[in-house]
Each structure stands twice: as structure tokens, then as C-alpha cells.
């Protein structure tokens, strides 16, 4: 009976974790999409890293000139 209870408890823990993980991943997917749209609306590259690389690249070009 103890073993049965332990198994039930383990299963509950596992299910709770599964739920937390799914919730987190769903929120991440949603917010990442929202941010991409906001960036596009502002006329910015979707990826902020790309924007920084572009800015750095432009500076280097200036030096070459």
C-alpha cells in the first residue's frame, strides 16, 4: 500500500512538472512571437542581435572608407 501511495505521489509530481514545463514553453513561444511583431512594426530587424551586428558592421565600413 505504501508503495502504491509513493507511486501515486511520484506520478503527481511528474504531472505537475510536465504542466509547469508546458506552461513556460507556451508563454515563451507567445512572448517571443509578440516581440518579433513589435520589432517588425517598428521597422527593426526581428533579431536584436542582428541589429547590433549591422550597427557594428556599418562602423567598420566607415573605417575602411
Amino acid at each position, binding site marked *: 500500500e505504501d508503495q502504491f501511495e509513493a507511486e501515486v505521489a511520484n506520478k503527481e509530481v*511528474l504531472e505537475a*512538472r*510536465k504542466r*509547469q*514545463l*508546458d506552461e*513556460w*514553453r507556451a*508563454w515563451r513561444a507567445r*512572448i*517571443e512571437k509578440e*516581440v518579433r511583431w*513589435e*520589432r517588425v512594426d*517598428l521597422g*527593426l530587424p526581428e533579431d*536584436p542581435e542582428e*541589429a*547590433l551586428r549591422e*550597427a*557594428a558592421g556599418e562602423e567598420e565600413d566607415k573605417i575602411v572608407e
Partner: protein
Amino acid sequence: MRPILLQGHERSLTQIKYNKDGDLLFSTAKDHVVCAWYSVNGERVGTYNGHIGALWTVDVDPTTTLLVTGSADNTIRLWDVRTGKQLKMWEFPTAVKRVEFSEDGTLLLAVTEQRMGHLGTVVVFPITVDLEAEQVDAPSFTITFRESKATVAAWSYLNKYIITGHEDGRVSQYDGKTGELIKDVQAHELDMQITDIQMAPDRTYFITCSKDKNAKILDVNELKVLKTYVTDTPLNTAALTPKKDFVILGGGQEARDVTTTSQRQGKFEARFYHKIFEDEIGRVKGHFGPLNTIAVHPQGVGYASGGEDGYVRVHHFDKPYFDFAYEVEKMKG
């Protein structure tokens, strides 16, 4: 995971920052000196000299061109990262407790201290990320705190919001363009000071920690508390780890604040929690005093902690760290 010990500061550490590439580490301490280090081997690159008071805070812009520092000498100073030359100094009536560049490096915020006759503020300056540029003298706007002063502040993604953490445990959201208050939540226990705020890499959420012994993750748009990490010690610092879903917390009670020796044991450790499941998963010992500041390498390959003991300890994560995963994480999402 043998740490590298950085010896160069004579007083307690106040803040550590990696640059965007993670090859450099910048540290401030109460000893008036700003240090730059190679993160891979702990060799000191150089120092930035000029402040005449304890240093509270440091940040580096995303292109590793400009360094900014804030001090108890009531100044913010801007430095050329490579030469160590001071480029600009802004003076205030009180100490500067926190500085931070926005994600594009074009804005700088600073938290100034409240003192008799002066309310605490957040000031915002436009920045030209260019060593030759003349930086402006006056802030573009100032947020003044009439109730509880801000202790920490950070920029959200797209510079939409300034998020502030307060002495009374509140977290507030201000418009990043006008400084207007939008939202306010009692995220931490009432009148328990918020001691750190660090944004996630994409600045859509952040972690705060407090003297109330808890750390929390909130989202920048709604200020909704998404996660809570419960510890048994007052916290000074909290960081998020890229690559792995962990958080690292640091704190500890000062020996003089502890009544019994048993309470003191095991408090000066960096604590690792699982970001999503909120469980403690490990601790790293080493410091002889409270941990004041933790920074994580931007690529998630290591972290550095700065202590009240005057040391910086740089850790490079090894394979078991990267292999660690809960069963549910190994399952196909």
C-alpha cells in the same frame, strides 16, 4: 568546476558584469577601483582610475566600447573600455547605486540615492556609442520617488519600460520614453528591500531578489510573478542562466547580524535552482562572506560571484552541469 580566484580588490565587491562576448569581466568594489579581467584565465586587463568614493555599479555597452560606473562620490563616469580613459562625468547630489545600458546601448539609466533633502531618482541619458562623440550633459528625463526609493532598475526589451525594484519590496514599471509610472506590484514582502534585478537575455522577463529571502521571476509587460524561489537567507543577488533553465542566487547573513554560530553555517554559497520547477538543485561553496553579486556568462558557459570577502570567483561549468535535466525535460515536448 575549479574556480579562478581574482585577486585585485581590497574591499567587498559590489557588482560584476560580463561583456556581450563574455571574454571580459568588469568588477566594482568599495575600494574605488574598477577592474577589467579576462574571464577565461582571470588575468587582469587593467583598471579604470578616477573615482574618489566606493563604487556601487558597473555596466558595459553591447559593443564593448563604453564602460559606465556609478559611485558613492556622487558621479557617473563613462570610460573608453580599451584605453581606460575617462570620457565623461555626470555629477549628482547623492551616490549612484545602479547603472544600466539599454539593449541597443543608446540609453543609460542610473539610480541615485535618497538622502536628507534629496529624493531618490532614476535619471536617463541618451548615449552615442562612439568614443569621439560629445555626450549630453543633462538627462532626458528624471523619475523621482516620493514614497519608497528605488534600489535597482533595468531596461525592458525595445526600451519600452524601465523596471524598478524598491526599498519597500515593490516592483514598478515606468514608460521608457517619458518616465511615467504605469504599474506597480508588491512583489516582495512589505518593507523588505529588493537587492538585485537582472533581465533575461531577451529582456522580456527578469529576476529580482530581496532581503525577504525570496527571488522571483516577473514578466516585463504585466509584472506578473511567474516563479518564486524560496531560500533560508537574505538575498543580495540573483541571475538567470542562458542555455540551461536555472537561476543562481547569492546572499548570506553578515557574521555581526547572526546571533548563533549554527545559523552562519552554509550560508555563503551560490545556490542553483531550477528556473521552471523552482527546486533547489545545487550549491557552490567558496566565499568567506555574503555573496554580493553574481553574473552569468552571456553564452551560459560559466558564472562569476563577488563577495563581501573581497574576492571574485570565476567558474566554468563542466559536463555534468550541461547534462543535468529532469525526466520531464528529456521527454519530447
